[in-house]
């Protein structure tokens, strides 16, 4: 069952800087896709999760997009991160908590993602993001 339609939040200062700059940047590997903020958020979330970095949202929050724009695969990615975090399927009953976990991983991951795409070090951002993957599933 899909999420009910609710807003996904990020810190206002992150939305104004990291999210907007990645969105506008010609270096973004997500350029040209329809729902742009969603892609950045999901990438930030999984990178945060991958690096086991999670941080609570501080200061003013700002909505980034609505859950209605997520497809079912993306919804299950978000749910899976919460399930893996809690190691329990009961979390499926708590949509609010699932999204909170996603927001917190994205909150930490966005800084890494920003650095990979717009940070000072040279190189193709796509390759730099890929270099984070330790091993591919077989």
């Amino acid at each position, binding site marked *: *069952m899909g999420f009910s339609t609710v807003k996904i939040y990020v810190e206002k200062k992150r939305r104004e800087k990291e999210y907007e700059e990645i969105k*506008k940047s*010609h270096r973004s*590997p*997500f*350029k*040209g*896709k329809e729902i742009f903020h969603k*892609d950045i958020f*999901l*990438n930030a*979330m*999984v*990178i945060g*999760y*991958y690096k086991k970095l999670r941080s609570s949202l501080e200061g003013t929050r700002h909505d980034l997009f609505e859950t209605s724009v997520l497809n*079912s*695969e*993306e919804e*299950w*990615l978000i*749910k*899976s*991160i919460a*399930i*893996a*975090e809690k*190691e*329990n*399927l*009961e979390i*499926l*009953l708590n949509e609010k908590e699932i999204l909170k976990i996603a927001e917190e991983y994205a909150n930490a991951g966005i800084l890494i993602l920003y650095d990979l795409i717009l940070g000072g070090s040279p190189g193709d951002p*796509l390759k730099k*993001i*890929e270099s*984070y*993957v330790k091993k*591919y*599933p*077989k």
Partner: protein
Amino acid sequence: MKIYKIELENYRQYNGEHTIELSTEDAHSLNIILGANGVGKTNLLNAINWCLYGDEPSLEKTRLELQQCIANEKELAEKEQVVVRVGISIGDEQPEYHFERTICMGGNPIDFEEQRKYWRVACLEGRNWRSYNGVDWKNMTQFNNIVSEILPGGIRSFFFFDGERLDDFFRKGMEHEVKKAIIKVCQIELLDRCIDRLTIKSREITKRFTGASSSVADINKGIETLIQSKKGIEQEIKDLDRKITEATNNKEDVVDKLRKCGEYNVQEVQMERDELERGVKGIDKKIEVKEREIKRHFASGIVFIFGFDALEKTYELIDQRKKGIKQPRIPPDIRDKFLRDLLAYHRCICGTELPEGSSQRESIEKLLDSVKFTSKISDDADEGYYKIANILEGCKKFKSEREKLEKEYRDMHEERKKKDQRLKEISEKLKGIPADEIQNLEILRNSFEDEIRMCIGERSQKELQLQNVEDKIKIKNAELRKEIEKDKTQKKLRLKLELCDKSIEVLNEIKEKVVEEVREKVEQKTKEYFFDLHWKKEDFKDVNINENYEISVLGQLGSERLGSLSAGERQILALSFMAALSTVSGFKAPVVIDTPLGRISGEPKEKIAQSLPNYLEDSQLTLLITDQEYTPTVRNCMKDRVGKEFELQYDEAEMNTEIVELGGDE
């Protein structure tokens, strides 16, 4: 609107007076003007442009150069002064306007301003041309206004164009040309002017906030510097565009000379180079498409790779739960809906009545409470189990798919390298021919090519710089607004600024909406025409122009086909795009195409020709075409729509092209 008549007098190859009366019948709205290379086909297109708009965009020469070379050479050599004249009669059901432009050449240097009085237009009133005797002709402003009502200069290139240059639209790095074309069709100059005026006004107002704080002045100063820098970059981009066009035309002139050179097999070598260059264009397109595919594949897959562990863990937990390991078995067999139904019907499936307050009913209500949460988990988990299994399967293929795409990409680069190498060899071969003229032409060609390459590269850099400066201006403006808000003393000024800002915002929104709507319409029409014209439409599924103005053609299975289109198919796509632009513009003007089949060789030429009778059926269409293009098969395909056929015959001794109307089916 249709062109009824074109009159030429001493214009380039056309010595003396010449008239072409085109077919204007709706059922036979196709005119064919046949002519070998160099006899004056392109100059007929130039003459139309010159008469109506005062320039010849396909030549891109300066006006002074135009004046020097526009008259017939023989006339100019024999007479002290030559009057050059081009007249065009245009109308819907009958000729309604007669436009005429004349210029007197030779003798004393020409006063350009003086020439303006020779631009004039006459309107048909009853059966007579009003003000047609040179005494009371309308002035230039009126001339331009009337021409603009029929077809504004900004969009004429979608009605009068050269088929050979169309492929350039879809060259790598030329998305800005597609964007420019779509924006031109939008006709939003008025909106742009309003936005410019309001932006200036807004800047003026912000400068008046002097008392607020010193930072306002500092930010204002910073913005001013950025605006100047932006203007400078915009001008540099314009200059680069002009240089690219000039160098392209110059290179084409030089290459044309090589194509006509009969010595040392130069013609054959140049033909091989033409073919190779077409191949390079095709590969570049393929590379570009592959790059996009790689990015798309990456962007849609990498999130699941990073989240693979979580997905796998979830899958395991659901699997264990389904099998009853560790956690209690999910009771999907006792669904809350089923229990609710029993309560609603007041009867159990065993037939026991379940009246309100009965102990049996209470038992079921308790059971409902206990299962409703586990039931939700069960429903969710059931759905997720199969969904996640698919995602995990996809993740396992991600690496191999990515490697496959990367390999294809590398192979394309290899192929490109080989062609580049052969092109270099050809160039060396031409430079090694013991004939100064050929060597010099080749050196000149290479220098133009270098210039084009350099300018395109520089242009991309400038675009990035411009984007950067625009972003900085936005940030500075936001800072400035914050500072101004702190100043509570100048309320009136603040309100004015708010009004300006809001108006700019609204106008920009309108502009974006208009451009987006037009882009969608052009996309839709391009697709319609492409499917209408293509001989194997069943191979294709869709044609898209995305938000970045990148065009893509999808095959039946949804894969990108743009890179693998043949030269003929690309020409069909380009013609479809042009037809879409002219249709969406809303102007019902005649269409004139020079060399509609471009430089396509072999079979596709006839296939395109078979489609051309369906091209812009509601418009008067005039094709300036070579006899190699207009083969008997092609002619047969077009015969039902053809109204008139003309042939341009060049007399070298007289330096004159005669226009001969061909009759009947001989």
